[in-house]
């Protein structure tokens, strides 16, 4: 299973911080967002916002990066600390 993580307000939209997805073959981040969007258009459009970044295994990647079974993909909306 691939693990998907939704931080910040994306977690509220996704109904939780974590989801798992069974990937029989590698899919790009863009394709996975398409899958999520089909089930939940609001979440899909939030994930496609230009300010949302993607981290695959803890490294920032672009939407063409391939996600495989057992990978961890995180969706990172604009951050705010302090």
């Amino acid at each position, binding site marked *: 299973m691939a693990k998907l*993580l939704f*931080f*910040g*307000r994306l*977690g*509220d939209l996704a109904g939780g*911080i974590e989801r798992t997805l069974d990937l029989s073959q590698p899919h790009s981040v863009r394709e996975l967002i398409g899958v999520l969007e089909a089930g939940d258009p609001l979440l899909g459009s939030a994930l496609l916002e230009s300010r949302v970044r993607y*981290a695959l295994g*803890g490294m920032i990647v672009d939407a063409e990066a391939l996600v495989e079974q057992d990978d961890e993909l*995180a969706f*990172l*909306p*604009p*951050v*705010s*600390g*302090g």
Partner: protein
Amino acid sequence: MLRQVRIAEQAFDPEAEIAAFRNALTQSGAVVTFTGQVRPSSDDGQVSTLSLQHYPGMTERGIEAMLDDAAERWALEAVLVIHRVGDMAPHDPIVLVATASAHRRAAFEAADYLMDYLKSRALFWKSETGAGGKAWIEPRDADYADAARWDHPSDGR
């Protein structure tokens, strides 16, 4: 440079942390500390809870990279960063940054730099719950501008 980074799930005592930080120094004549605490009110009224989330592992690596950068820019003996996650009440400390150097300028600038990074670039997500419900907080334009002051002109960040 001595460095300590801690993501704290529980409340911490800034005064005790600062005392321990100072006691461990052997070369510095200057110590600068910054404490950020939960504001009792926001634009929407009274704040009851501030919540912070991080991405365990990646958040810490980002802060470590920021400390590498600070160590290149300034001659510092030691740096301490403590950042809360979880739920906090008004007046609870959120963040503590302490820097120590031989003379004051490096310590002042490094603390300023570290806070600018933590406010708008470190992987934290902040929400505020008050009378009007829960709202996710984003940095102000001023926070982004503050952080951009430190960018190297060549690296295009």
